[in-house]
């Protein structure tokens, strides 16, 4: 369970560029929750992810994960139990290292029992092979290839595998399919759905696709000006359509939705 209690963050305080990115955000995610987050550009979605992942410490408030206070736990210590995917498929993997080596690094998280000088064993290799086969991209036969040779979609699928190979307590997906071509995006999204459902992973996903925001997962959050302005789940969410969501946005923020990408994505209705 993730508890976010009155988290605030202001960037560049005291300058003309002062920006209140998070404004007393409160959110409780229960185990197995799959929440999607929508919001205009600059609403604070990625900042919220940064706060959860520990890219910076909040100015106010605290974070708790499974009853443990993680507000001031450093980023690399948190990532033991927080999986994270970025929009840029190139960010999640090391291009000059092989698929196998990348997986080995991700596998570190589970390997409290192995020492820092242990190498990739035959058993690890077999396990990696098995996991790669599940992606259905033929990567299991290219384990000695540098990751830089893979396509964006393949790299994102690999990053997804790396983030979930050791089941994380929470998975953060920051528009992880937005930079992929439509067919690949569908494939990576299907993989995401399957892995999250199979492992019962608690998941937060930023999306710019309104349909996706309502279809995927069990809960939809809407952010505006550093606040969560709308939080819907269960019966109420099932009855909603994209127009309802846009209406609710206008009502809560007092302004029309100002994001072309979102408006476009509602029309195409992917």
């Amino acid at each position: 369970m993730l508890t976010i209690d009155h988290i605030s963050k202001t960037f560049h305080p005291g300058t003309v560029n002062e920006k209140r990115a998070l404004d007393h955000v409160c959110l409780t995610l229960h185990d197995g929750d799959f929440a999607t987050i929508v919001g205009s550009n600059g609403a604070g979605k990625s900042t919220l992810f940064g706060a959860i992942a520990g890219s910076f410490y909040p100015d106010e408030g605290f974070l708790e994960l499974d009853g443990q206070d993680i507000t001031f736990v450093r980023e690399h210590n948190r990532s033991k139990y927080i999986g994270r995917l970025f929009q840029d498929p190139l960010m999640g993997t090391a291009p000059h290292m092989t698929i196998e080596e990348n997986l080995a690094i991700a596998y570190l998280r589970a390997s409290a029992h192995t020492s820092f000088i242990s190498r990739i064993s035959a058993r690890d290799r077999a396990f990696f092979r098995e996991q790669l086969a599940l992606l259905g991209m033929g990567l299991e036969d290219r384990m000695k290839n540098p990751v830089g040779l893979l396509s964006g979609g393949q790299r994102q699928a690999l990053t997804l595998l790396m983030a979930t190979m050791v089941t994380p307590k929470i998975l953060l997906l920051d528009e992880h399919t937005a930079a992929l071509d439509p067919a690949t995006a569908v494939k990576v999204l299907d993989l995401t759905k399957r892995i999250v459902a199979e492992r019962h992973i608690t998941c937060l996903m930023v999306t710019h696709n309104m349909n996706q925001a309502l279809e995927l997962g069990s809960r939809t959050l809407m952010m505006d000006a550093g606040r969560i302005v709308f939080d819907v789940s269960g019966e109420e969410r099932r009855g909603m359509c994209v127009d309802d969501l846009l209406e609710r946005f206008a009502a809560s923020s007092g302004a029309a939705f100002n994001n072309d990408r979102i408006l476009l994505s509602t029309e195409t209705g992917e």
Partner: protein
Amino acid sequence: MFLTAGIIQTALETGLIYGLVALSLFISFTILNVCDLSTDGCYTLGCAVGALVTLSGHPVLAVFASIAAGVLSGFITGILQTTFRVQSILAGIIVNTGLYTVNLAVMGFKSNIAIFGTPTVFSLWKGLSDGAFWQEWSALILLLLLAALLVLVLHFFLGTRLGLSIRATGDSSPMVRASSINPGFMIVVGLCISGGLTGLAGSLIGQYNKMSDINLGTGMVTIALASLIIGQTFSNRSIHMLWKLVSVLIGSMLYRFIISLALRLNVPTEAFKLVSALIVAVAIAAPQLRALLSIQRKRSAELRARAQRKGK
């Protein structure tokens, strides 16, 4: 004969010693993607500490003392870069500057010390046998064995979880942070190893030349970079770490050959730094130069073809 056996032998021997500095830069510059300019001072430090301990202790002990001194130097550079967020180039320069005084102090505030008449690792090793062949080639054999051992150890290490994490740190830092690896720690560990290798090279060159000089390391970083870049032209397309490591040593030995050739061509010793600088510049610029030339060729071919079409 233009190149005598003696010249080739010396080029191989010194090439292997300088190759260790190139390996050190391979770790900091290529793998960690960090510009560590403390190499010059660190190399002299290894030499000074090595000379001191050779004189007052034992040459083998001197080797380990130099490695320890190098590791310490790398550690300080690393801490400056990570904990105190000093830019990597600046951190190296700061350490390098400070080391000048440290090195003088180690040598008892003299600008050089000689270790003639005391046994060195090379003389001890040479004394193992009286055979003519051994007397002639023992130093090269010792250095080859040492370099092979180091390459194997480094190859093993870079495949371990810690080694992989260090490589990933230089390759993709967002990925590293998302994988519960502390990039700062990895940079410090990497620079310690790099410093240790430089210190070792300093110790060996001191015992090889039987002297230590405060200016020994000046320009070392350029020389090592030249060796590294020459070596990497062999392993550019390879993904095999072992070959990458070996090619660095080969690059260093090739570099020494080029210098030997310059010597044979009566290039004055004073001009050597300029020669090194030119080699580095040419080695780095060569691929780009080739690309420019090929564009030029394509363009003139295209222009000719167009002129022909017009002529018809």
